[in-house]
């Protein structure tokens, strides 16, 4: 079976986010860019399915040239080939536009399954997967923690935890799955894997290569306008509970939670 995994880069989750002076973007100096953690679960699951059912895994990345590094990581983990959609005209585009570029790159490929992360841990929108599925007119299975492809390769059974229960859902293939934490533990690339990855095909595509009009991309084409970015509302450090013993402190804390905070 042929599987496509979409990926992007995000600031490492330990990054302290600073707002740029224009209040429209974040300061990107000194940011350590990593593969979006949820996309990594997608890469791993694609590789496991390939190991079981055969076929090919194609990684489609989108973003600046540095994303090449994350595609190479996926290739080193075991993916077969990579495509990087990169174009200066993509700068400032919203997720809707990103999904359109991904769809244009994927529509002519052979695929049974597509993985995306359930969301990027940057803008936290979580709509690229759904939009891509809509544009390709295939079912979406979102926030998935277990994937089983039928022996005949024509359908998939997945597990989707919702509040208080887990749904078991079946879908015909092709379908798109958004990966949730718990799906798997991504492998590390091995040294031979890293060596092999250097020789695996990785092509770059511009918007024009994909037959897209640059006017539909970039900040000017955004349907969601950013008015302003701000730091989170400040939280003041509160009271440190005094007391001689743990019992005294606990008693004082419980009293404050009851009388002052009114949460007990």
């Amino acid at each position: 079976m042929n599987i496509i995994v979409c990926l992007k880069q995000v600031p490492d989750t330990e990054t302290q986010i600073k707002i740029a002076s224009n209040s429209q973007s974040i300061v990107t100096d000194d940011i350590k860019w990593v593969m979006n953690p949820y996309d990594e679960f997608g890469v791993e699951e694609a590789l496991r399915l390939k190991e079981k059912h055969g076929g090919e895994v194609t990684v489609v990345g989108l973003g600046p040239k540095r994303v090449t590094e994350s595609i190479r990581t996926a290739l080193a983990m075991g993916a077969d080939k990579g495509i990087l959609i990169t174009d200066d005209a993509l700068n400032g585009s919203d997720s809707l536009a990103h999904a359109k570029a991904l769809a244009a790159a994927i529509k002519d490929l052979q695929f049974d399954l597509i993985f995306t992360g359930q969301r990027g841990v940057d803008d936290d929108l979580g709509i690229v997967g759904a939009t891509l599925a809509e544009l390709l007119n295939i079912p979406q299975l979102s926030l998935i923690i277990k994937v089983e492809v039928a022996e005949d390769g024509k359908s998939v059974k997945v597990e989707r935890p919702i509040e208080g229960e887990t749904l078991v859902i079946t879908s015909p293939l092709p379908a798109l799955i958004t990966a949730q934490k718990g799906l798997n533990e991504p492998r590390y690339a091995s040294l031979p894997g890293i060596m092999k990855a250097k020789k695996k095909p990785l092509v770059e595509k511009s918007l024009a290569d994909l037959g897209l009009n640059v006017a539909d991309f970039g900040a000017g084409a955004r349907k969601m306008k950013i008015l302003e970015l701000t730091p989170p509302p400040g939280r003041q450090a509160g009271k440190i509970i005094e007391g001689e013993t743990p019992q005294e402190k606990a008693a004082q804390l419980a009293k404050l939670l009851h009388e002052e905070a009114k949460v007990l």
Partner: protein
Amino acid sequence: MAQGVWTIAEQRDGKIRKISYELVSEGRRLADALGQELTVVLLGSNVKDKASEFGPYGADKVLVADDSRLEPYTTDAYVSVISQLVKANEPGILLLGASVEGKDLAGRLAAGLDVAMAQDCTAFAIENGSLVATRPIYAGKAYAKVTFENSWPQMATARPKVMSVREPDPSKSAEVIDAAFTLNDADLKTKVVDVVKDESGKVDLTEADKIVSGGRGMKGPENYNILEALADVIGASVGASRSAVDAGWRPHVDQVGQTGKVVSPNLYVACGISGAIQHLAGMSTSKVIVAINKDADAPIFQKADYGVVGDLFDVVPALTEEAKKYM
């Protein structure tokens, strides 16, 4: 001109979920600001008798789509019905809950309507007649104020437990309308073949009023019974930090933080959690934060309303006993 505020109700097994009331309450406020009508859209099977629940919370109309194929929720069926209703009625604003179901639905719906969608918002306002949404990004390390351009309806999802529910006025009622729609079986590709209930009976972290969370300081999975005991007394759900989950001490669904759940309980008790930035990002919209940690310099104390410097293995059991007095 697109007019009116719509909120999509969420129900499960015929029971209206709390997020639905949060949405109606917020929707009423926005509709009043615009001088427009508020319509609640309710989908399900044999749910029409539930439609009367929304009037007291401020709905002018309830549009009901009742069909056996609308229970349980599937993306295919819900997107098909709601997009038909949106195209036929052209609301100006469309709000959904940022629950698991709402996020799934809103994403696909927005894609089909080719509109932008602001996910997981914590505040809404009307400015110059347009919807302005505030949403945490980078899991709350920054906030974005956004609006929409050439994008109708203006679509957004609201983070559960952030927006307050109005006091219901039993004298108010809404007009209940049967929605006109068609469902084509051939379009319903995904099927829910089984529903596995969580037997623990624990409230999901995203919906919990109180959370007791443990991190690396718990030292091992066997010690979480200390937190479970406190949680039982105060009616809380137990969460965990990433390091506790990655160590295999707790299941992934318990993780709070940037790569886990983003939570907004009334009370968050962080035990043995130092306060890594990715954890703080996931719980900083909690109303009251308590930190219990041995290390007085732990960053968690900078975010906590109440801090106890001490050994959680002494403090938490003592707190469990003290809390009993107030429950």
